């Protein structure tokens, strides 16, 4: 079956859409203008990220900056932790030193008291022997 290019043009002539098409489009436009509450809900759970869409180069630079900032932050945290642990050790050592010092003093006092008691016992025994 033969057909000409004109036959094809005839078959593919433009047609108008149904009546009211323009009105339906303008109703859709009015809905869009009203705001997000009247538009179709976003299909993606990540739709809230859409406003943050950036040029790929800028996105990459931001990502690199975030990684570097994270690394610096972690390093600072690590340094702070080490300093805190050193301070804790220092504090414990100081407490031990003070305890030992206090025990030394107590020991000295007890030694002194013991010597006095011993001295007193010796004197008493001398006096008893003299009386006899």
């Amino acid at each position: 079956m033969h057909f000409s290019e004109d036959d094809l043009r005839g078959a593919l002539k433009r047609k108008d859409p149904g009546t009211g098409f323009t009105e339906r489009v303008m109703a859709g436009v009015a809905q869009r203008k009203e705001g997000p509450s009247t538009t179709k809900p976003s299909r993606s759970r990540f739709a809230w990220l859409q406003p943050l869409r950036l040029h790929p180069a800028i996105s990459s630079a931001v990502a690199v900056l975030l990684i570097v900032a994270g690394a610096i932050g972690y390093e600072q945290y690590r340094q702070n932790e080490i300093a805190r642990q050193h301070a804790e050790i220092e504090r414990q050592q100081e407490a031990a030193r003070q305890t030992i010092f206090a025990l030394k003093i107590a020991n000295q006092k007890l030694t002194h008291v013991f010597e006095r008691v011993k001295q007193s016992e010796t004197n008493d025994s001398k006096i008893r022997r003299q009386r006899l």
Partner: protein
Amino acid sequence: MDDQRQLRLRSALERCVQGESSYFAEIVREYQAMVFSIALHYLADPSLAEDLAQEVFLELYQRIKGIQSADHLTYWLRRVTVNRCIDYGRRKKRRSETPLEDSPEPAAAHNPADELLIGRLMESLETLEEKQRMMVILRYQEDLGPAEIASLMKIPVNTVKSTLHRTLEELRKKLTRKLREVRYALF
């Protein structure tokens, strides 16, 4: 496009870009037949074609500030319509050859033989591969040359030329086969 129409469209476009959305209706009225017909001839489904056409115009409304002239507007509408048609077509289940009575109503013809031919042509068009079908529509509905089709569809010009040539041959073979089938059925 004649000068008066160009002037009117340019004015409507300028007003839309400035935010006067009431002028958008004029742009829709001017281009609705073009957008709807590309979708209708490609998808062979009037309601789907109308949905697609509405989406194209709503997208245009969002991006109207980027449109620089009436020619740019025509190009933009065709390109977006073509891309959406191909996407829709891929999602939609491919139809096998449909009987004539299920095909969309053919364009007005002067005699029954023409109507039959148009009907068979539309039927055969639906069975073409997606890019072939779109090229035929752009060539014979929109009267675009191979270079313009190549620009719209982002395909090399030589590919467009060879595909159009091959497609017409294919359509002729399909129609000849159909005629033989009708003859065998009758006799």
